[in-house]
Every structure is written in C-alpha cells, then in structure tokens.
C-alpha cells in the first residue's frame, strides 16, 4: 500500500508531472469551449467525446514517464534498493497510473459538464463509462511501453508513432483490412466514443489490447526482473 502511494506521488511531484496535469485540464476546457462557441455540432455526445481527447492522448504520458523516470533519471538505483522485489514496484506503478487515469478523467468530465451547463443534450452514462475505460486503456498502453523501453524519449516516440504507422499500414496493404481492426488499438477503441458498441467491437478491443498492452507489459516485466540495474 505504501509503495503504491509513493508511486502515485512520484507521478505528480515533479515539474513535468504538474505541467502535464495542468496542460490536460487547459486543453479539455479549450476543446469543449471552442466546440461550444464556434462549431456547428454542439451536441452533448460530440462535445463530451471530443473533450476527452486530450485526456486520452496525454494521460498515458504520466504512466509512461512514471516507468521511464526510474531509468532516465536513474532513480531505479534507490527505488529497487528500498523495494528489492521488483514486481511490487511494477504493480504499484500500474495501479498508480490507473488511479491517475480515473482522477484525470473525472476532472475532465467535471470541466466539460460545467461548460455544458445550460445547453441541452441527452446524458449517456454508458458513453461516459466507455470514455473513462478508453482513457484507462490508453494509460495502460503508455505505461506498458514505458516498462518495455525504459528510456523516455524512445518510449514516447514509439508510443505515439508505431500505432499510427500500424493504422496506416493496415489501410494500404491489401489483405490486411479484415484483420486490422483486431490488431489496431487505434481503430478498435474508436467505437467506444459513442453509444451502441457491438460484441465484435468489444472482442476487437480485447485482442488489440492484448497485443499493445499485455504483450509489451509482459516483455518489459521480464526484462526488468532479470536485469542488472546500474
């Protein structure tokens, strides 16, 4: 429990962590405000989904940096001396990233709902939950890439670029089109932004999450538990 609390604190006790949180808050307000002020589509569902975009793009960085910070700042030397059972630290980091994702998501919805006060629209609880779930998934995605790659800069680049390239490849290479939704987390999470997600879409989210979250997390975990740290 105390290791989890410490990991949660580590994610937000640096300037980078605070800057990231503030940026997310400002972007959520900006996206919702701009859409309400200027866009033609001001429907409740569209504003709420769009306002969560900054959360789902940036919150994963908190988890990613929580992992890579140990290596890029070399604090692994003290972290794993104090807690030599490395799996405890890894689990605490994933839990901390999960809690952060929920807190940031709740704050994001809070900002959006305040801006939406007075405008009409059908509140959809299931869409809110789905968006929160997507935010959590992407945070796990970023955190597992941090665990896999250890260094901040390569992990950030790979986290943002590889899925993007993968989506692109899935679209242009003939024959990949039918399998692509099963393997591409960028595509498979899109339906969750709206109501009426189908069973096959949940299944596609499951398989692509195994590929992009569970697999890198497992490989990174093995790498960490076997490594000599210096």
């Amino acid at each position: 429990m105390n290791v989890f609390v410490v990991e949660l604190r580590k994610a937000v006790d640096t300037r980078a962590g605070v800057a990231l949180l503030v940026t997310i808050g400002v972007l959520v307000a900006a996206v919702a405000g701009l859409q309400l002020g200027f866009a033609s589509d001001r429907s409740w569902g569209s504003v709420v989904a769009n306002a969560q975009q900054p959360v789902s793009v940036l919150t994963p960085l908190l988890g990613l940096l929580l992992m890579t910070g140990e290596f890029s700042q070399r604090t692994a030397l003290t972290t794993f001396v104090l807690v030599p059972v490395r799996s405890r630290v890894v689990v605490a980091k994933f839990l901390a990233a999960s809690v952060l994702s929920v807190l940031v998501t709740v704050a994001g919805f809070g900002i959006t709902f305040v801006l939406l006060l007075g405008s009409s629209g059908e509140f959809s609880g299931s869409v809110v939950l789905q968006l929160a779930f997507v935010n959590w998934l992407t945070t796990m995605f970023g955190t597992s890439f941090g665990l896999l790659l250890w260094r901040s800069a390569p992990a950030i680049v790979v986290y943002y670029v590889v899925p993007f390239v993968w989506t692109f490849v899935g679209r242009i290479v003939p024959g990949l089109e039918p399998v692509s939704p099963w393997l591409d987390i960028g595509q498979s999470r899109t339906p969750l932004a709206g109501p009426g997600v189908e069973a096959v879409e949940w299944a596609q989210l499951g398989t692509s999450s195994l590929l992009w979250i569970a697999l890198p997390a497992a490989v990174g975990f093995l790498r960490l538990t076997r490594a000599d740290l210096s």
Partner: protein
Amino acid sequence: MIDVHELTKRYGDRLAVDDLTFRCEPGTVTGFLGPNGAGKSTTLRMLCGLGSPTAGAALVCGVPYRELPHPGRRVGVLLDASAQHGGRTGREVLSLSAAVLRLDAGRVDDLLDEVGLADSAGRRVRSYSLGMRQRLGIAHALLGDPEVLILDEPANGLDPEGIWWMRRLVRSHADRGGTVLLSSHLLGEVDRVADRLVIVARGRIVAQGTRNELGPDDLEALFLRVTA
C-alpha cells in the same frame, strides 16, 4: 555484517568480479579500494540486490539482500549521488523514501539538519552541487537508521569540511556497533578511517587485512604496487 563469498560476475567473456571473498564485521569500517573498472561498483550493486551474481554469494545481515524483509531499515545504501530525479526537491526525495519505510516526517527534517541541507531542502536537486547531492545521498542512506552502511565514493565532490564530517560520521557509526563498507579513491581518507582494507584489481582481491597486516608501506605505495 557483510559476508561476500566466492562472489563472481561474468558479462559475456569478461569476468567483472572474480571469486571475491571478504567479511565486514559489526563495529568496523572496511575500505574497499581499487582502480576504476576493478569491479568495486559491480560488487556493491550485487550486495544491494541490483545485480545477480554469476556464482557465489553476497550476504548482508546473513541473507541475500533481496531476502531482507525491510532492507531499508537494516542497510543504508549510497551508490551514486547523481542518480536522483532533478525535478524533485531535496526534501521530496527523502520524503518519498521515508514513506516507503513508513517513517514519520520528522525524521526527514532531522536528517536534513544533520547533513546540513535544511536551508536548501526546498530547492530542486537539479540545482544542487555534487557535494550537496552527496549529502542528500548520505541522508538517504541514514534514513532508516540502518546497522549496515554501503557507500560508494561518498566523499566525491565534498569540500574539506565535508570530508572531515563524512569521516566522523562513518567512524561514529562503526563505534556504535554498525558495519560500514566504503569505497573510495581518496586513499588518505580511507587510511584514516578504515579498520580493514580490501583492495581489488581486475575483478580479483589483490590484498586484504588490517593496516598493520598489510605492511609498513604507505597506502599509496601499497596500492600502486598491488594493483599494478
């Protein structure tokens, strides 16, 4: 107590640590000496559970470090003073570890006082000099009031007053019954504070014993002779 027994570490073809055996008894300071690349840091990392031995054992308080239930309460470690997150304040660095060790916040302030960082505790570590980082690292090692201290080059970057302070700290820790293993390139300092010396070169022990057992040469002459 520290008990290193036939400790060996191999990286590919290279033997970084080759069959080291030595003990550090409670109440003593052991100076761990050797040229750069002799295997000192590799040995200390294995002692602290950061690296796995290829063969042999590195025991602290009778067990491998990773099997200690509350290692931070038994062993204080300073391996590299520059390995701190530059974006955290000095107080935050200590507070995080105090939270892991379930110590109360007063302990952090006491140690900041003790190492002379009370006035800079709110500054980010990025702005610290090497000497200040070293003091922070010492405070970190002392946090859990451990019986064993493992210090890698703790005098690096300290000014003469700091070196004097460090020597007194190490000595009094041992005089209270603690065990200290201390690596350093400052031969004169080690000579003044250590009860026993372990000298390594190319991964092997080339000399060990009390100062008297190692002969009448001054330490520099001895060091250069055995590590040549």
